[in-house]
Every structure is written in C-alpha cells, then in structure tokens.
C-alpha cells in the first residue's frame, strides 16, 4: 500500500500499520513534528542558536522537494518562529519520488497522491512554480525567474537534480521518448504505457531503468534494456552483484543488452519513435523509450554565487554549510539533499553526494538543526547511506558505500535463490552491505560498518556458507569528486589570494 492521504475507511488501517511499524518508518501526523530522542537536552537544547534569530529571522529554502520540505518541518518543530519561505520550480507541494517508478507507473497510485503529508499545516510562505535564478550571498537575496528578490538571513540550497536528458535534442523530442524524475514525467509515462505499447526500450540499467523495466514486464509489455556497462546496477553495486542482477532481469524476461550503447533513436515522418540503432550494429524496434542515464544537479542558478558549485553539486562541510569557491565554509548558506557534496568521515572523508531518499531526509534534518544552532551545538551529518529498490519481485537494499569497495563476499543466504547478503570491503574493513530479499540483517551490517569491523567477516552466522570466499568487487573506476573543477589562484598576499573557476571552452 502507498497512500499519503487516506480516506476514513483506510485511516484505521494506516494507523494500525504505523503503530505496528517496528522502525516507525511510517510518519503519520508526526512527520517532522516530534523528536524521537528521549533525551530532552538533545530534543530541545536550551542554549542553542541566536534566540533573536529564532524568533524573528528570515530563512529561505530553495527547492521544495523531500529535503526542502523536511527541513521546513524540522525548523518549525525545533522552534524557529521567524519567516520561512519555500521556493520551488514545480507547481506542486513537496512530493515523494520513489513511488513514481513503482506504484505510480503500475497504476496503483495516482501521481497526485504522492504529495508528502502535512507540509500544508506548517506555517510556510510557499512560492511555487517559479524557479530561483540567482543567489546573491553578499546582498543576502535569492532572485527568482520573475525578478522577485527574496531576502534572507540564512538560506538552504536544496534544488536537487533533474533527469539527464537524451543528449541529442532532436531525438529526445521524438514522440515516445521519456525521462522519469518528476510527477509529470510519471504521469506522462503512465498514460503512454496504458495507451498501448509494443516494446519499451530502456536506456541505462541503473536503479531507475531497472525499476521501469520491471514495471513494464508486470504490465505485460516486452522490454529491451540497453546498458553501456557490463551489467545492470553496476555503478552502485559493482560487477559481481551486477551480474546477479543481470541474471535476475533475463530470467524475468528482459531483453538485456550489456556493453552496448544507443547510437541513435529513430523516428518516422510524424516524429514518432520507431526504434534505435545500437553501437554493436543491431537495432531495436520500440515505440517507447525511457532515458534512464542518471541525474544532472540543478546548480545553474548558483553560477556567479561564489560557491564551490558545479556539475559535482555544491560542496559543503559535514554540517551542511556550503563551501565557497576558495574552500571557505560559509556561515549562512546551507546545503542538503541530492545537490550536496560533503565529506563523510566514515568513508575516508571522501566527498560524496548521495542521491537517496534517506539521505535527503537525514541531511535536511541536520541542516535545519544547524541553521538554528550555535557552533557548540551543531550536528555532523554522519548517517550511513541507505537505499532500496524493488524490481522483478525482489527487494534490494544497501547500507554503506559499495562503490568504494575492493572486495565483496556473500555472507548469508543463497545467490541461486536470489536471497542473500553481500558484504563489501575496502582495505580490510567492511564498507557496505547489499541484501536481496534479506533486509532484516541490514541493521547488523550497519553497525559493523560503524564499528569499522574487519573484512572479510570472521565469525559464524546463521544461514552462512561453510567458508567465505571474497572476490574482487569490480566496482567502476571511481570518478574524482569534483570532476571538471579547474580553478586558478590569483594574488600574493594572503588577504588577496582567491580562487576562481576556469570555464571550459564552449
């Protein structure tokens, strides 16, 4: 069931389910309104922040999705009584994206029913449907596309990411070519899927592409998946687990083609998609294509802001404070969600941006808290990345960062049955765990990662093999944190020295 706005008949069942949920993952009326910690000192710190700011300050949140919405709720929960403005380019209140590639495409949930609950009851000035176009840190203003200037004392950048479009605009414009990121994307795709499709071509076998392929099969539609790498999910999980995912897709009936790219999308005289030519010379006949090539971060509006913002996102410290182009941490500019790139102490202080639901929620909470706390009471964003996916009847969950691993080992369960736990290691320490239909063990491995436990695990376990056999994880070559960030430094005196970006030639 997925229902953010249940009717009365459903209400009791929802209350029941929420009460029963062992991890309280279902936040009914309590979303971002109450602390779960029992320590009153932690829940309501008495000495934090500038009290005057908390009473009458101005906070602007740019980006009205999961992170922005959650931060607004937390700010109010923790006593921010000043002016709170939420700016979003979409005309909807914050909504939930994970169901878009699952329940919404299946037709089990109407797209509009994914609106996140309760935000409307938080006192927020909500500027919807108008994107921000500029951030002026010196003047403390956000400028909107219609010219409005919104002043702030503190600002939270949570503009997230958008679907990476098909690179050739004429092909992308063919009728039948889709991307999936927004509620409107999902609505369009759903309409297309129900209008009658002969074959769906999915370009890219990451999580979104794989989930879309899974839904297509469930709807009885033939699917071809084209993946540039050697296996699905390889970017996140590496080749070893990717191969298992490949077997799973093929067994389910996907026409999966790996190590192949789409050379061109082709259309008829009426501009309707007819198929694709692939790099191996083969062709696919398809009247619908889903471009699932990952996301592009929404940083364009920050050009000229002086922040260390670029295709990699917006650099921030572990407390969500933005870093400027000189590497200085700002006081009043905060970042959260998909767009943030921050150093994670658990993973060798590597700068990472985590495009996960759970990260958006956790990071937004930390950002909101820090926006109204003095430096003695700030929190670091130390939660471990967790994500999940449902595809081909299997629940995949991950904790930690598989993509930095050098080895992987199956510790529990059976690969043949596709019910197993895979543990990833980096230089002799556990760095991640991925479960296929074995999510109940994830918390244990989370604590193993937090304790920097040795890899491979050296203990006896229920459902474990007689002997653990670690193999190279074959994760993709890691991409440098701030790829493409070239700066020049000018000035001699420490007071003059400054960095500035070198623009790549257009």
């Amino acid at each position: 069931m997925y229902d953010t706005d249940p009717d009365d008949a459903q209400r009791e069942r929802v209350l029941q389910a929420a009460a029963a949920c062992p991890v309280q993952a279902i936040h009914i009326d309590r979303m971002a309104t109450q602390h779960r910690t029992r320590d009153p000192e932690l829940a309501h710190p008495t000495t934090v922040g500038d009290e005057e700011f908390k009473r009458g300050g101005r906070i602007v949140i740019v980006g009205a999705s999961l992170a922005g919405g959650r931060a607004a709720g937390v700010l109010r929960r923790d006593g921010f009584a000043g002016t709170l403005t939420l700016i979003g380019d979409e005309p909807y209140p914050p909504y939930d994206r994970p169901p878009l590639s699952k329940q919404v495409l299946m037709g089990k949930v109407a797209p509009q029913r994914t609106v996140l609950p309760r935000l409307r009851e938080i006192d927020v000035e909500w500027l919807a449907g108008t994107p921000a176009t500029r951030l002026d840190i010196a003047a403390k203003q956000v400028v909107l596309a219609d010219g409005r200037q919104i002043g702030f004392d503190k600002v939270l950048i949570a503009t997230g990411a958008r679907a990476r479009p098909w690179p050739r605009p004429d092909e992308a414009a063919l009728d039948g070519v889709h991307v999936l990121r927004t509620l409107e994307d999902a609505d369009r795709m759903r309409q297309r899927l129900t209008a009658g499709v002969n074959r769906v071509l999915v370009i890219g076998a990451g999580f979104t592409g794989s989930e879309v392929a899974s839904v297509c099969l469930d709807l009885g539609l033939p699917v071809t998946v084209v993946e540039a790498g050697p296996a699905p999910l390889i970017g996140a999980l590496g080749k070893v687990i990717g191969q298992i995912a490949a077997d799973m897709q093929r067994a389910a009936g996907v026409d999966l083609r790996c190590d192949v790219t789409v050379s061109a999308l082709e259309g008829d005289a009426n501009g309707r998609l007819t198929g694709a030519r692939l790099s191996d010379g083969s062709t696919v006949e398809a009247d619908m294509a889903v471009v699932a090539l990952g996301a592009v971060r929404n940083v364009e509006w920050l050009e000229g802001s002086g922040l260390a913002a670029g295709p990699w996102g917006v650099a921030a410290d572990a407390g969500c404070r933005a870093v400027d182009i000189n590497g200085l941490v700002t006081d009043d500019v905060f970042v959260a969600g998909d767009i943030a790139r921050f150093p994670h102490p658990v993973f060798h202080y590597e700068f990472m941006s985590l495009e996960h639901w759970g990260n958006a929620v956790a990071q937004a909470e930390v950002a909101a808290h820090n926006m109204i706390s003095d430096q003695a009471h700030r929190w670091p964003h130390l939660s471990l990345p967790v994500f999940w996916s449902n595809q081909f009847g299997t629940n995949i969950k991950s904790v930690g960062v598989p993509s930095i691993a050098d080895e992987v080992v199956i510790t529990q369960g059976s690969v043949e049955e596709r019910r197993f736990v895979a543990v990833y290691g980096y230089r002799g320490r556990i760095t991640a765990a991925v479960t296929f239909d074995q999510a109940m063990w994830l918390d244990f491995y989370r604590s193993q990662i937090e304790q920097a436990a040795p890899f491979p695990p050296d203990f006896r376990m229920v459902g474990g093999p007689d002997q653990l056999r670690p193999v190279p994880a074959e994760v993709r070559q890691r991409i440098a944190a701030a790829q493409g960030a070239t700066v020049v430094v000018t000035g001699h005196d420490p007071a003059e020295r400054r960095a500035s970006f070198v623009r790549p030639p257009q």
Partner: protein
Amino acid sequence: MPPASIYEQIHRFANRADPYTLYRELRETPVARQEDGSYVVSTYAEIVALLHDPRVSSDRRKLSQPPADEKLPPSFIAIDPPEHDRIRRLTMRHFGPPHAPRTVENLRGELLTLVTDLIDGISDRTRADIVEDVAYPFPVSVICRLLGVPRKDEPKFHGWAQEIVETIGPGEGDEAERNQRRQAARMALAQYLGELGRERRANPGDDILSGLVTYEGPEGKLTEVEVMTTATLLLIAGHETTVNLITNGMLTLLRNPELLDRLRNEPDLVIHTVEELLRFEPPVHFLPQRVALDDIVIGDVTIPRGSSIVLALASGSRDPRHLCDPDRFDPDRPYIQHLGFGGGIHACFGAPLARLEAQVALRELANRLVNPRLVADPPPYRPSSILRGPEHLVIEYDRVLPAADR
C-alpha cells in the same frame, strides 16, 4: 548455595505479580552472566542488536552443551535459516502478505461477532472472570477457525497446550521432569494435529492446516513432520499468548479507569493502547532460547561461543534509556517502540492477528461494561514467568450495554 541471582528471583512464583521491580535491578547489569553459564540481556538497545545479529542462533542444538535430541524436531521458532526461512515462508503464504495479504483484515467482522457473543454471555450477571469468559475462549475460537481445528476438540488440546506453556523455560520443580512433561505433551499435540492434517489432505478446506498439507510450489512442500511441528506452534502461540494480552489489557485499563472512558469516546485510541500494552504488560517476557554461534562482545562483556542467551524482552521495553518514564502506562507516547513481538527473523508470526484480537476485545469491553472494577488486585497469576498473565481476572460491573449496531 550462592544467593539467588536476580534472574532466578524473577522466576519465583511469589514475584509473578510484579517482576518489573526486579527488571530494574536486572538492567543494572545489561549483560548478566548466570551461574549456569547463560547470559541474560535486559536493556533495549542490546536486545534489539542481538535480535538482528546473525551470530545469534535460535537452535538449541548449537549450544556447546546441546540438550538430548527430542523425538520431535523443533518448530520453525527454534531453528535457523535457511530451513527456518523456507518453513516460515511456506506457512506465511496461507496467513499473510504477500500471498494472503487480507487474511487477518477479512476476519474483522468475525472477530467482532465472537467478542459480542461472549460479552452477551455475561450480560445477565454483574460479575465475570475476564479470562474464562472472554480472553481465553475468544482467541481459541479464532485460531481453531483459522487453523482448521474443530472447536469441540478444545478440551482435548487445552491440556497439552497448557502443559507445554507451563514447562517452557526455568520454573519451580525438577528441570528434567519438566522437560519430559513438555516433550510428552508436545508429541501428543503434534500427533493429534498430524492426524487432522491427514484428514485435511483428503478433504481440504480454506484453513491454514489444509494449506500446509496441500501446497506445493517451486520451493517444494512441508514434510509431514514439519506440518506437525508448525501446526503445534501455531495452535499454542495463537491462543496462549493472546489470552494474556487481552487479560493484561483489561487489568491495566481497570487500573487506569480514565482510559476506559477515553476508549469509549476515541475509537482510534485502542490502537496505541494495545501497542503500549505490548510494551508495558507484554504476554511474552523472555526469549530464553538463543545461542551465541561465535564470541559476541557487548560493552565490556564477551558472550563466549556456544553460550545460551536469554533476551529479557519485557525488561527491555521498560528501559529508561529507551524511553521516558517507562513505568507509566501512556498510550499517548509519541513513539511506542517495544519488544512485545520480539524482532528480527523470528518476529511474532501472528502479530497482526494478536493486535486485531486485542483491539476488538478491549474496545468492546470498554464500550459495553458499565462501571467495571477489579475484585482483587493483583489477580492470581499463571505459573509461567516466560508467558506471563493472570490465571483469573474477576471483575464486577453494574450492567452490560447492548452491542452497537453492526
């Protein structure tokens, strides 16, 4: 003889009415080694961690000093993956999601009818025993109906079920003798259910037992012995625990009469009331059967490989480091997280049914009894410290209101 440990004192019958004071002492040593080499874990975070720890087995045969083999193998509550997972999946497909997601929900109307009839049955008097009159017959009827066991056989299986429950874990009397009694009763009950299963195979109905004996899928099917052990587990767990939940619930409400009033006016309140009950007065106080498969370090204690681990669930749910004011019954708590149903892969199989049964029973009792009050507080308790609950709960009331329109 060394003085009795706190854990030993908890099992003394004299402490049945209030083990919670002793739990407080128990928690001062979160992982307490006992004289017999077992480890009692009594704090919330440590219990939760062990419930989800793959180094912890539920199979007693993996102890460094395993018990003598029983004639009947253990049921899925007392074995590990992958066998546990396979049997539990093959059983769950007849009871809950993903294959039978509406089984419990579809019982709602039937549950209300059963409770209504039972309460109608005490409406001609002003004194009743909640255990005998409602809390026992109600879940028994439900599990009989679900499992496919004739209700009229209740006198037959009740004795066995009670014998099994009263001899689980430590108690008064000779351990070996208790063990023998439990095995004999378990075998008798399993044979009775095995016989019933054979009848169902020839003549299947829409009940779980019929499903267990007839279903065969990609994973195969349950063996005859697995059907026997599984049906035995479900029959016992299906009513011997819920009776305590409902009785403990009524006892707690009668000790907090303002909640009885609120329940009449706020129908949703019963949901959180039952959750809080599972935290505050749970039917299952201990999981006494876990085994460390490897050395497990918790704080400054190492539980050595092969040791027996006892998880003190009811103590963990009242851990002051887990929640504020743990000894207060408060259904309005913002987060009610409890160990009432255990957790991890052995989390209570019948939890959704138990919840619904308790909600329906307590809501109807609150709605229909006028001015109910306790006759004796504390009430007399059943012997078991593991599955703890009153033997009788005698109450008086002015009258019984008719049932609301259905």
